[in-house]
């Protein structure tokens, strides 16, 4: 607890908070604050009477705790405000941004050298040089700041400015995914001393600068006149923070926002109205059941097998997710090159029953199963207030009951969940399409068992550890892909988790006002200001006003 008078602590809390930046696609937790409803379709042309379509109002789910990339803002790049050395394209490929090209990598895979673009200035007018890059990365891995970004940079040992426009990164061990991590937004070195600038003062090199920020309410971005690249046509973007899904839907229904992240349940009404276009995106944002190794029922191979084959994932998506999503079988989405079909199974309740019968889990008079006096029953924890996971837990309960397995959902706070992860099953959510290492290593490596929320079931397998380590350090792409295929095969054999669904992300955007919006092929777990059709806001073009 600890009152944050100590400056270090304040850093810490800031750093912590930023992870909140991303709004995972949870739903009505607490009522959101700020924002409101206003009738009519006051879309374009604010008080400034500017050109139609040059302004946009977007309702997002969560508020970033900071706009400082060093504290975790825009972890996957494209912060609009800030830019990294590289960025990820819609096809998930890295391409240079502030760097003039992709880095030169030394033969041993330990040194990465970037050349910086000329003529780039920060929003405060100062120009970008190698020192800014060095300061940004040093802050990101500074243990004092405890930045969440540090997790992506575990192998980074040293960063040096070779000259004004050349930066050299030295790794302690090869990390094949390192380039993906250099999407980190660069901020001026002066803004990091003595502590990272507060949210309202963050400056970057991006096409937009922070014009107004009201915590709990909104942030307004305005085009940066001296941007090194092309000026965005949408010159003013207001993001209002509305945490509650239903409240956001109400705001779209009243026509007061131009775009929003919406729950699938609310899409129907908006689609019928015809004023908005629905943009639906697949994600790598999975939900899975973590089955603790030591549990007599949930840790049993036959029970796991039965759940894996007997749970109807499509029915779960149609019901609990209201159709917004797709079945998931593993942590790596099908779009990723590393994906292996080894994880896929056909739903077959009969086969599941047979597995249970053969393993001695006999059906009893009341339809439930038991073996040697041990009832086929386990508790399934989910975070209280997370409606999405609650729905999943309820659906799993219903479906498992058909198989004779009693699942008892229990809503708990994360504090209460953590100490119980060794004993009870949990509805877990995570996933990103960019970095297979990050979406597997922390979750399945035995060294990460019970570290924070890593490897919550305590899964330990030598074969898995070897595959994960090989994937992390592989320099050869073929070898790396092969390692992650091996990881998925191990998962399919051991079934430490039962993967259920990738949660779909649905967005609406006012029809006929803009074009050129695109969304990443597959979205990660976190998606807030950076996600959705406004992912490439600077590239939007305004279409001629129809009225």
């Amino acid at each position: 607890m600890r009152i944050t008078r100590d400056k270090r602590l304040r850093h810490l809390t800031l750093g912590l908070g930023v992870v909140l930046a991303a709004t995972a696609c949870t739903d009505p937790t607490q009522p959101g604050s700020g924002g409101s409803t206003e009738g009519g379709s006051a879309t374009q042309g604010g008080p400034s009477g500017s050109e139609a379509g040059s302004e946009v109002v977007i309702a997002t789910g969560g508020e970033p705790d900071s706009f400082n990339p060093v504290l975790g803002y825009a972890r996957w790049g494209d912060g609009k405000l800030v830019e990294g050395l590289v960025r990820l394209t819609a096809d998930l490929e890295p391409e240079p941004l502030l760097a003039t090209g992709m880095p030169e990598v030394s033969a041993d895979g330990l040194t990465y050298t970037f050349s910086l673009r000329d003529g780039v200035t920060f929003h405060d007018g100062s120009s970008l040089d190698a020192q800014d890059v060095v300061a940004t990365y040093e802050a990101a891995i500074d243990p004092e700041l405890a930045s969440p970004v540090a997790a992506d940079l575990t192998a980074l040992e040293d960063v040096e400015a070779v000259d004004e426009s050349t930066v050299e990164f030295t790794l302690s061990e090869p990390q094949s995914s390192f380039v993906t991590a250099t999407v980190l937004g660069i901020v001026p070195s002066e803004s990091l001393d003595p502590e990272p600038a507060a949210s309202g003062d963050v400056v970057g090199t991006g096409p937009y600068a922070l014009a107004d920020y009201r915590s709990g309410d909104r942030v307004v971005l305005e085009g940066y006149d001296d941007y090194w690249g092309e000026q965005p046509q949408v010159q003013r973007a207001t993001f209002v923070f509305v945490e509650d899904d239903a409240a956001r839907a109400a705001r779209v229904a009243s026509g007061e926002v131009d775009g929003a992240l919406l729950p699938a349940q609310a899409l129907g009404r908006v689609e019928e109205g015809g004023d908005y276009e629905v943009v639906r995106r697949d994600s790598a944002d999975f939900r899975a059941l973590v089955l603790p190794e030591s549990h007599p029922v949930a840790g049993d191979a036959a029970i796991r097998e039965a759940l894996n084959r007997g749970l109807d994932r499509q029915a779960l998506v149609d019901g609990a997710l209201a159709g917004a999503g797709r079945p998931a079988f593993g942590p790596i989405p099908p779009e990723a090159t590393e994906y292996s079909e080894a994880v896929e199974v056909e739903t077959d309740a009969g086969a599941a029953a047979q597995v249970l019968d053969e393993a001695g889990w006999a059906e009893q008079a009341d339809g439930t199963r038991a073996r040697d006096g041990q009832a086929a029953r386990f508790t399934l924890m989910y975070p209280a207030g997370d409606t999405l996971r609650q729905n999943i837990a309820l659906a799993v309960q219903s479906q498992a009951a058909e198989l004779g397995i009693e699942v008892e959902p229990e809503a708990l706070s994360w504090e209460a969940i953590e100490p119980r992860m060794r004993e009870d099953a949990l509805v877990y959510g995570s996933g990103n399409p960019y970095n297979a290492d990050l979406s597997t290593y922390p979750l399945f490596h035995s060294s990460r068992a019970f570290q924070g929320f890593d490897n919550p079931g305590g899964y330990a397998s030598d074969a898995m550890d070897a595959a994960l380590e090989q994937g992390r350090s592989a320099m050869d792409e073929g070898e790396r892909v092969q390692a992650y295929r091996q990881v998925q095969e191990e998962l399919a054999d051991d079934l430490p988790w039962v993967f259920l669904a990738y949660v779909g992300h649905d967005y609406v955007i006012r029809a006929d006002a803009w074009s050129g919006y695109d969304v990443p092929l597959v979205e990660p777990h976190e998606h807030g200001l950076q996600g959705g059709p406004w992912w490439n806001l600077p590239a939007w073009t305004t279409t001629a006003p129809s009225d």
Partner: protein
Amino acid sequence: MVEPPGVDHDGALGLTRRRRSVPIRTGGPGALVARRLVLLPVLAGVVTLVMFLLAQRSPFDPVLAVLGERALTLDGPTLEAMRARLEDTSAVQQWLTWWGNALTGDLGYSTSQRTSVGTVLAQRLPWTIGLVSASLLVSIPLGVALGGWAGTHPGSLVDRVIGPGMLSVQAAPPFWLGLVAVWVFAVTLGWLPTGGATSPQASGVELLDVLRHAVLPVLVLALAHLPWFVLVVRDATRDALAGAPVHAAWARGIPRRRLLRSHAVRPALLPLVTVLGVRVPELITGAVLVETVFSWPGIASATVDSALRLDFALLAALTVLTTVLVVLGNLAADLAYRLVDPRVGQRDG
């Protein structure tokens, strides 16, 4: 122990207690004020100390509290390192530090609102004060009118309906009234916004825009308060009419209207002040619930946020603030009551 007239009639359904606490012993109003003002810092000190002591015992993990469910996206070793960094200092030490800083004007940093506690208060307090005072401006006149009518017309329809009616209103939680109002006026009829205080397009705080947003929260809060005022005014008016001066005046042939105004309604107004002072805790409770339902950006809704996120800096400041308000409310109630009944000060508590 002084009991303001009428307070006992409000039924048992208010969310909190009904009796005023601080006993009155001797001395004039000056001594009373002095004693309360001495009590105030002591009380604030004790209350915050208890909070810090409880916090120390709390099983909660502050790192998780700040992170919420996104702790999952954080690297395990990083999380463990953060925890290791948060070495506990003693509760008393924290308490002393907090007060030391608070007295020099530094209330600390609010983790749930991502800014300094001072800024949170400055930004949010006006919204709450506006909401509560607007609701009182509605509920007091309405309460006086309804209660006055019922009190001066015993046995009338209004009088007979008001008792059960007000009881039912008290039995309805304000958050539920709020939801019903949202459903009727915002969702079904579409007349008013569902929540918030300003529109997304509004470039700043525009009066008309805010008024539109304020209608529902103000009316719901006013409705929640209404029963206290109606009942206290009704009973006070009824008692006054039954008193000897009224009978004497009646006998002298003073017109009924003037009689009622000077002898019935006016004496009922002071108990109104008293009940208001005593009801400060309920005012705060109502504000918390109504602000939450309507996403009103006030300080009361921030209380819930700060508790959910274990934001102790803000929680401590809010606790002190509410304590001060309640003590001052009680003081106002006592002073008002003395004006009516000077004997009060002489009684033993």
